[in-house]
């Protein structure tokens, strides 16, 4: 990726940042081609926010080169600022202004004319489904609405690169899906998107390429398919009431039981067909199943596969749908 004919939207080499003696980013290299969705995936404390803060000119790098849209963030921060839109991990709306006033404020700061500002505001309210919020002050919003307003404010300047720092953390599944749709629409319009997340599923759903960040270092990079190939597949977890049922089921399915927890882990994708076949076999052996959960690979599995150890945080597993 070193000899690209056109400069990538984001080019980072040897990025380092430390707080006191704590090295938070330890030599990051990133290249994000224009018009793609790039996801920085990592657990809490990995350094995702710090990367976004440096790329969006909020804080300085201690070492390394960072170029966004062809401009050096240290030497031409205003050039970079003119080309980007940022939705940080923590909401950046003015709580005392209504949704509409927040957007008009952004229009003014982007130096759009009065009429153009009103037009863009109406368009963004429509596009991001902010109709209800437009007349309410920011302090009264729900999490999902806040995120969308936040994003809309970042879009006012028609940015070529958008930074989204954990845009769906803390959102309910519906708001999360709404946001995903919006992100896809933006990417379809040719905007480059740099997104951080703790959810493998989110990166998988949205990103063209994913980089795995672990304690300030990139430990893997590739397409979602490439990364998932590294990870053992999902499995079905069967729970039993007692040891007798567990033993019978283990014999019927030919897998090694987990006697301590009274569960069996059967490799499989959790599709309806294979699930039914599985339960049929247990039925035939007259084994009673106490509970069942589908386990899809999550961030922990990826980290385990890549680094050989679990990430610092224990993320929750995806249970029965």
């Amino acid at each position: 990726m070193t000899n690209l004919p056109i400069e990538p939207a984001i080019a980072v080499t040897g990025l380092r940042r430390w707080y006191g003696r704590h090295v938070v980013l330890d030599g990051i290299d990133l290249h994000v081609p224009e018009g793609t969705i790039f996801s920085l995936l990592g657990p809490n404390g990995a350094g995702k926010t710090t990367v976004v803060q440096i790329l969006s000119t909020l804080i300085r790098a201690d070492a390394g080169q960072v170029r966004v849209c062809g401009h050096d963030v240290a030497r031409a921060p205003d050039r970079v600022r003119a080309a980007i839109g940022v939705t940080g991990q923590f909401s950046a709306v003015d709580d005392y202004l209504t949704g509409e006033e927040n957007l008009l404020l952004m229009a003014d700061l982007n130096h759009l004319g009065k009429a153009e500002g009103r037009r863009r505001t109406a368009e963004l309210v429509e596009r991001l489904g902010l109709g209800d919020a437009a007349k309410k002050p920011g302090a009264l919003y729900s999490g999902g609405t806040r995120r969308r307003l936040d994003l809309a404010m970042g879009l006012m300047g028609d940015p070529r690169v958008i930074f989204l720092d954990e845009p769906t953390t803390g959102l309910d599944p519906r708001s999360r899906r709404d946001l995903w749709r919006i992100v896809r629409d933006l990417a379809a319009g040719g905007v480059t998107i740099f997104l951080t997340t703790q959810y493998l599923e989110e990166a998988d759903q949205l990103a063209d390429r994913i980089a795995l960040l672990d304690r300030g270092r990139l430990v893997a990079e590739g397409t979602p398919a490439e990364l998932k190939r590294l990870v053992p597949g999902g499995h079905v977890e069967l729970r039993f009431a007692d040891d007798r049922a567990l033993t019978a089921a283990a014999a019927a399915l030919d897998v090694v039981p987990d006697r301590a927890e009274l569960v069996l882990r059967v490799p499989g994708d959790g599709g309806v067909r294979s699930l039914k076949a599985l339960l049929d076999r247990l039925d035939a052996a007259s084994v009673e199943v106490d509970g069942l959960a589908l386990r899809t690979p999550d961030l922990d599995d990826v980290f385990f596969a890549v680094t050989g150890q679990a990430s610092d945080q224990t993320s929750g597993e995806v249970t029965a749908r």
Partner: protein
Amino acid sequence: MTAITLAVRDSTTMLRRQLRHMSRAWSVTLMLLAVPIVLLLLFVYVLGGTLGDGLGGSGGRGAYVDYVTPGILLVTITGTVQGTAISVALDMTQGIIARFRTMAIARVSVLTGHVLGSVLHTLLSLAAVLGVAVLVGFRPDATAVEWLAAAGVLTATTFALVWLAVAMGLVTTNVAAASNLSMPLTLLPLFGSGFVPTDSMPTVLRWFAEHQPVTPIMETLRGLLLGTPIGDSAVIALAWCAVIALAGYAWAKRLYNRDRTR
């Protein structure tokens, strides 16, 4: 766009934001106005009869209204400016400040918005307080030019103290600390010639009262509005304003530009 037009344009935008905030928090605005008016009424009606006689003539309450009004005007400024320090500290806790820092705007405009908003706010409050003062018997004998000069002195004082207050709001990280830090400003008119002449004070206090910045400002206002001798008060007053404004501006700018994560 040149740097100057950009700064003017963005500052105007930020001023509009500030005015919106003030109109949302109108109860605070009213409170800031009520304090000097209550003080004025207290000093005129409760203490004014006695204090007025102590001024040297036997002018009583009427003489005291004239004497105390410039002091009350300064109380109006320092009180409103304390509100500025608090509102800046509060604003800096808002996430939108980080957004401003990632936008291609004149960086100082966040601060100039606060400054312009507070100056306007203070000038309006000053007009209201002056109105009440006239109602309770304030009788200035100023000519139009003297009124203009007095307005200039008040504006310069406000401008200077607002910049200082903005810096105080930035140096603290919470509202309570901003309030405490700017508190001494509100006491300056009291420990000066605001309510009683300095020559009635004990030596140490008197020295402080005569050399602190607010006293020459009040003496200049008295001279312009009431015809008392000004002497070198005007020059000293304006020099203080210039020093405080420049120091406040430089301090505020430095605080705003520092890396707040370090």
